[in-house]
């Protein structure tokens, strides 16, 4: 069977990493190429780059960043953040992304998912979702940096998206993100039960045990960011712990 994946994520603003690892004596902690190379060397299974630029000018760097990272990267690269059209997606794929992620643009216009999947294939098309718990036993999609609660039910949304051609779901728990209290396992169980495509868990990881739990809840991959950026652990250390816990990651 395919191994569960450990996926480091870089947030990039106008071509610079927002929170780069600062503990490794790196020449330039803000350079996405250097960060991506480091994660690759440590055993990262894929890299996700999310463009968090606030302005169109900032977002204009995304294609160049993708191309630069592609030169050094021999593992899969997913690029997301501000992808609003098939043209955006095409530019990123041509620059070297293996997959593109869409988020709020797909909420605005779900047909975008089908347009990208029909043109480039489902395996290139990732739906990123920020999910926040609603009062009762469910989750709704939030967009706009968490400021807008859409009322759109997450389980329904993933079913719709997969029906339109999304080949993978990047599922971030809005409530857990940054808290280091573990992934939202109920959210993961609900979404992995709803669709048959791979689901990447995101938001809340603090240690290897959290990754074990997410994988046991059905995630085929775990996205990690701040625990790497803050120097709390490394991909290699996490993978060693996972292997000791009986999770068959790629060594």
């Amino acid at each position, binding site marked *: 069977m395919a191994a*569960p994946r450990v996926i480091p994520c870089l947030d990039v603003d106008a071509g610079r990493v927002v929170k780069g690892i600062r503990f490794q004596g790196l020449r330039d902690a803000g350079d996405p190429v250097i960060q991506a190379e480091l994660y690759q060397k440590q055993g990262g299974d894929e890299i996700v780059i999310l463009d968090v630029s606030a302005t169109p000018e900032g977002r204009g760097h995304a294609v160049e960043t993708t191309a630069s990272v*592609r*030169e050094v990267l021999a*593992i899969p690269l997913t690029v997301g953040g501000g992808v609003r059209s098939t043209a955006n997606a095409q530019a990123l794929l041509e620059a070297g992304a*293996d997959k593109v992620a869409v988020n709020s643009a797909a909420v605005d216009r779900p047909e975008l998912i089908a347009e990208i999947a029909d043109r480039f*294939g489902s*395996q*290139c098309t990732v739906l990123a979702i920020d999910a926040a718990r609603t009062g009762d036993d469910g989750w709704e999609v939030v967009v706009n940096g968490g400021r807008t609660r859409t009322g759109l039910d997450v389980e329904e949304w993933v079913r719709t998206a997969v029906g339109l051609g999304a080949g*993978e779901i990047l599922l971030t728990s809005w409530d857990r993100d940054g808290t280091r209290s573990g992934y939202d396992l109920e959210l993961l169980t609900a979404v992995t039960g709803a669709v048959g*495509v791979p689901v990447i868990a995101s938001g809340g990881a603090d240690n290897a045990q959290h990754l074990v739990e997410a994988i046991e809840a059905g995630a085929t991959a775990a996205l990690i960011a701040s625990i790497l950026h803050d120097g709390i652990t490394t991909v290699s250390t996490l993978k060693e712990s996972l292997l000791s816990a009986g999770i068959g990651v790629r060594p």
Partner: protein
Amino acid sequence: MSVDVTIVPTGLANIASVVAAFRRLDVEPRFANDSDDIARADAVVMPGVGAFGAAMGRIDEVGWREPLAGRISAGRPTLAVCLGLQLLFEKSEESPGVHGLGAVPGAVTRLPGEVTVPQLGWNRVTPDERSRFVEPGWAYFANSYRVESVPDDWIGTTADYGGTLVSTVERGGVLACQFHPELSGEWGSALLQRWLDAAGRDS
């Protein structure tokens, strides 16, 4: 010794990764335009992301079918990746009625419903000991369709995902990979280098 590598653009995406991988091995690939480019090339790469039917449509539109099939039958250095591997076979459940190159006997079928589809991730590759190119290791797969068994007269390697799936088939200078060697880290890079080295000797 540098090998002339020509890429056949059968799919829409994925070419950037393949080009980057060859550049890291000091090879600057070029792109095929017409069927003569394919027949003349020292080494040909068939990348592939996209649908079986669309890719065969493109191949027939430009007239690449004969030269590609010819290279495969003659065992001339050819690397087929992902969809590229599937195109070598006779047909695929993905696009009923479409004829593949038919250079390798057999059919492509969809992964079963019991597993997560597409397969997106690293899986172990277990080579036949007669393989010229493949060492045991981990490769990155991104596929919803696969070939279930290695045909007679071809040497193959397999992986396990919802049953046995063919990860490579090879004969002479032809190497077809269901996984993406250009996305399979150092293991994949070493595989590409071995294929290049053989292509340099064979052509």
